[in-house]
């Protein structure tokens, strides 16, 4: 089970090149600007946002929902492909795990940004009430963070042990850190059995927990009476939407990582082809739930529902709505159904479209509904009848997105993005099977 040196050379984390440094500095600057804006929001209160008593939730919440959705990629690709023994997943899973960890951590932070009294955060534990969907979120998000971290960490153990060696002379500190984190991994049989078992347990656990996470996220909305949220379709609608957002993000990040790290030999066109099929499955499922969500109320045409649907179909949110539906779902489906469309480059473009569509999709789920309450909006300034995020909201939201990118960047920098040990094992197995054939 020795690992070929070439493999280590190819897959071991490398120092940033110039682009990497510029990218990291760029992200850091955006984060600092966002933190300054957030401090200003803490001092002045949330009047610096464009949220008001009617549009009482805005992009903080829709961004939160986006992060939660994206974090689903860990459950889907890693756990489900693992349990169904799809071996093409090997070079993709680590990146999926990294995205998952970054997204769910940022979800936790983003929801706190929306809280107007973060100084009273502890009340959520001290005075917790179990029937509030927010309390369910308080339980499920940390659970998912822990599971995602473990699902990233346990498969890393052999790789960390491998990386310790070559770095001993050049970077002794890093080598020591890898050594410590590898938890004295030697690759003995007993260790392997234990590791295999632990990963299996977490992979099985993270599927129901991931489904619950998306479900609770949907229930934050559908536990209210509001037109546009009060829908029994919401939980599966959110789960399939999370499937789309997660796999879309995975495609984009994998394309960039492959290009920057020159991993074309390991992440091949056929991997993109498979991912493309996976993504089109996700999009078709999501399209189905979208049709359920919009077609039924349109068909029965209840008055309140029609007011809501008209703002989406032809009203002030029409541009966004049709971009999300056509650009974020229909076009990707049409392109990805063809083999030519599943080539890396076109997949990258489609991936970006899907992620953008997914982000704006959450926006048009959250805000338009709030602007159509049961009683008419009267007696408040005219500006309260519309909502578009303020500069503060954009800066802070930009910072949360930059933070997610920074977590991904740092993890990609210091961790082997393609499992080294596993790739070596698979190559060996391939060779031995070839030998036995000949």
């Amino acid at each position: 089970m020795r690992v070929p040196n070439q493999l280590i050379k190819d897959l071991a984390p490398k120092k940033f090149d110039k682009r990497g440094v510029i990218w990291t500095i760029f992200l850091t600057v955006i984060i600092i600007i966002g933190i300054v804006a957030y401090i200003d929001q803490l001092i002045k209160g949330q009047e610096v946002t464009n949220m008001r008593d009617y549009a009482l939730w805005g992009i903080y919440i829709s961004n939160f929902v986006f992060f939660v959705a994206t974090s689903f990629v860990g459950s889907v690709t890693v756990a489900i492909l693992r349990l169904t023994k799809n071996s093409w997943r090997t070079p993709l899973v680590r990146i999926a795990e990294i995205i998952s960890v970054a997204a769910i951590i940022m979800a936790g932070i983003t929801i706190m940004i929306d809280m107007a009294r973060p100084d009273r955060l502890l009340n959520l534990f001290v005075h917790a009430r179990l029937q509030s969907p927010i309390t369910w979120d308080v339980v499920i998000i940390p659970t998912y963070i822990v599971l995602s971290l473990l699902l990233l960490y346990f498969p890393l153990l052999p790789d960390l042990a491998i990386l310790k060696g070559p770095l001993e002379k050049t970077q002794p500190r890093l080598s020591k850190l890898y050594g410590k984190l590898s938890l004295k991994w030697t690759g003995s049989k007993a260790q392997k059995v234990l590791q295999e078992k632990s990963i299996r347990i977490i992979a099985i656990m993270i599927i129901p927990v991931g489904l619950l996470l998306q479900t609770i996220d949907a229930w934050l909305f559908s536990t209210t009476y509001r037109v546009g949220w009060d829908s029994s379709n919401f939980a599966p609608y959110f789960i399939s939407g999370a499937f789309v957002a997660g796999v879309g993000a995975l495609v984009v990040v994998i394309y960039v990582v492959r290009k920057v790290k020159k991993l074309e030999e390991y992440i091949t066109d056929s991997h993109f082809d498979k991912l493309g099929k996976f993504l089109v499955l996700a999009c078709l499922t999501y399209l189905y739930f979208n049709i359920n969500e919009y077609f039924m109320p349109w068909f029965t045409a209840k008055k309140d529902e029609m007011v809501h649907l008209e703002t989406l179909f032809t009203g002030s949110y029409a541009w966004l709505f049709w971009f999300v539906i056509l650009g974020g779902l229909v076009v990707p489906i049409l392109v990805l159904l063809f083999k030519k469309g599943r080539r890396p480059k076109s997949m990258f473009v489609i991936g970006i479209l899907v992620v953008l569509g997914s982000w704006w999709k959450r926006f048009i789920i959250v805000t338009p509904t709030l602007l159509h309450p049961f009683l008419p909006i009267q007696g408040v300034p005219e500006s309260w009848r519309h909502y578009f995020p303020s500069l503060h909201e954009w800066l802070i939201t930009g910072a949360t997105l930059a933070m997610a990118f920074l977590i991904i960047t740092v993890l990609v920098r210091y961790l082997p993005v393609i499992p080294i040990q596993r790739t070596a094992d698979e190559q060996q197995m391939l060779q031995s099977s070839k030998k036995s054939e000949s």
Partner: protein
Amino acid sequence: MEKNNKKTRRKFLDKGLKLGLVSAIGGIGLAKLSSKLSANTNNESGETLELMTTDGTLIKVDSSEVVEVEHTQDHDKKYNVREGMPNRKFVMVVDLARCKNALVCQSACNKHHYITGDNAWIKIYKMQESKDTAPYFMPTTCQHCDHPPCVTVCPVDATFKRRDGLVLIDNERCIGCRFCMAACPYSTRVFNWNEPDQGDITLNMDMYQHEYLSPEYAGMPSLKGTVDKCDFCPHFVKNNELPKCVEVCPNNVFYFGDKYEDVVSNSDETVRLSELLEERAGYRLMEGLGTEPSVYYLPPKDRLVDFEEALKNYKEFESVEKPES
């Protein structure tokens, strides 16, 4: 031997003395008790009174047993703020036929609760269900639902339902997530997006600190990053006064009262709640949602004022008058 004898004798004397003392005290006590008992039986008047206990059963008591006790003034006021006044169930009735959109309730409420934002707690909506139905004005307060959706979704029990029917907010606990506002179908909740500038109230804060920093006096003071709303003025109600809007309305639109007592009153008259609702076909807003509001509405039939005339007062974009600067 001699020593031993002395000891036992001393012990005997000691014990005897103690026993004697105890029996003497006991004897005096018994004598006093028996004399009291005999005195009572001696004083029996033979007259009996029929009395009703608090749970409604009739009992007979000898008249000599009936003693006057001091009347407790604050009997109704001693209760847990989160549990509410015992044996009360507060309701409001809004007579839409009388509403002239005078806006007196709104401005009085704004002033009394030191509302400084852009969204009043009392709203007077211009309503018209469809093109062919009559337009009318509809004041809304918090509906103080018996199944309050806001309370269900609150993660920290900051907004709570009391036994006397009130839904109140503990602004010291609210974390500002605004889930209650999303859950309320009546759009009754108002958020403090910034530090409220409540003028004289913040000046007098020290004075009010002890008495008013309570969910029973909403807006006193309003806190940044927390939710406010109509509280049915429990600070008045517990002193047997009417809520501010009920008291000031020049057209007697609002009735306020106790459902258990089956009476509601405005500043002019007191009427039976059940009769009023029956005669005037009272209804509640969005009954179909199952929120069970505590506010009843009487249909806008035979209106006192022409709609067009009332429309003059209507301000589409303003509910809190700003001091001219």
